[in-house]
């Protein structure tokens, strides 16, 4: 039942990963989650919404939260990120907004 580790290369520790690199990582994780539904060829880009486009349920986002933590460590905390949002914002959440949050988290923790 545990999803497998996504394929993209591990981010290097000395430079914060770029938006493109994080997007590739996140797409890999989303394909892992979607594979459980037999949906492995969905088009995913920055403007893709989790809810309407990918049809992910909130429990799928819990799985994604676990994959993000495995990959980037505890500095990327999807639960805290979403807990700060209104319900409607979560419904409209895009892949791009998550990618920006990940890039920001990695930069912030690197600087600190």
């Amino acid at each position, binding site marked *: 039942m545990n999803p497998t580790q996504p394929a993209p290369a591990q981010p290097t520790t000395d430079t914060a990963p770029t938006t493109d690199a994080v997007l590739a990582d996140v797409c890999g994780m989303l394909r892992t989650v979607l594979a459980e539904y037999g949906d492995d060829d969905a088009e995913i880009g920055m403007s893709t919404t989790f809810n309407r486009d990918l049809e992910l*349920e*909130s429990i799928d*986002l*819990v799985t994604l939260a676990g994959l993000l933590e495995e990959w980037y460590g505890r500095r990327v*905390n999807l639960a805290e990120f*979403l*807990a700060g949002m209104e319900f409607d914002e979560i419904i409209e959440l895009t892949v791009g907004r998550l990618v920006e949050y990940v890039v920001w988290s990695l930069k912030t923790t690197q600087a600190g």
Partner: protein
Amino acid sequence: MVDAGGIRLHVQRMGPAEDRSPRPTVVLVHGLLTDSLASYYFTVAPGFAAAGLDVVMYDLRGHGRSERPSAGYTLDHNIDDLEALLGRLAVTGPVHLVGNSYGGTIAFGYAARHPDRVLSLTLIESEPATSAWATKLGAILDRVVIHLAHNEPDAIAWITANRGHNTARLAKGAARLARETTLGRDIPASRVLTEDEIRAVHCPVLGLYGGESDLVDLVPLKRALLTDFRAVVLPGHEHSVLVEAPTAVGGHILDLIQAGAGVR
């Protein structure tokens, strides 16, 4: 995944990992059919962890990522699962329990069975299992089975048009659960609590209700039976007050826990 006495349940925990000092445990129990531990994971749980609590969330049998047996869905099955799960997680001390909707009915049942193992109990839009509760749930589940499970395309089209895409997808999951398991028959046939069993719950009990919800009417009943019961009504909200107003809900729960449990 944790094996809780023969059934595999999906569990998530939150809390500062580096700090192994003993801290109070809060167990969050979600509601029926369309609900899962995600309703806590992305709302109140991060705040509880930040406040120094060990947070335990799990998916009920048949729900979320937990195993979905075809039968065995009475309230007592759910209480047995909670008991077995806490045993497997080696949560030995008394805990703070929070339940949303049917999850609160489970939490109350656990507290009635083990009054000394519960430090506080929060019921969000929820009530103990009484014969009136069983009748009401039976009517709701009948509607789900008839409209959703047996006329799914029509029902989903209506829900998509009137309640949106997100609710429609959750409803598909609910329809599958109602169609493929005995849940719809089992829950209304659950053993309910006697008044003495309800009175046995002696910890502080907090009831949180949406002002637009019909469950507000239950407040006088609980006040009469429980020694330490307080109700908070959140105006402008209905049954899904947990996901609609998580800041207010989380704040009231933390106040209750911190008032009695020595969390600083």
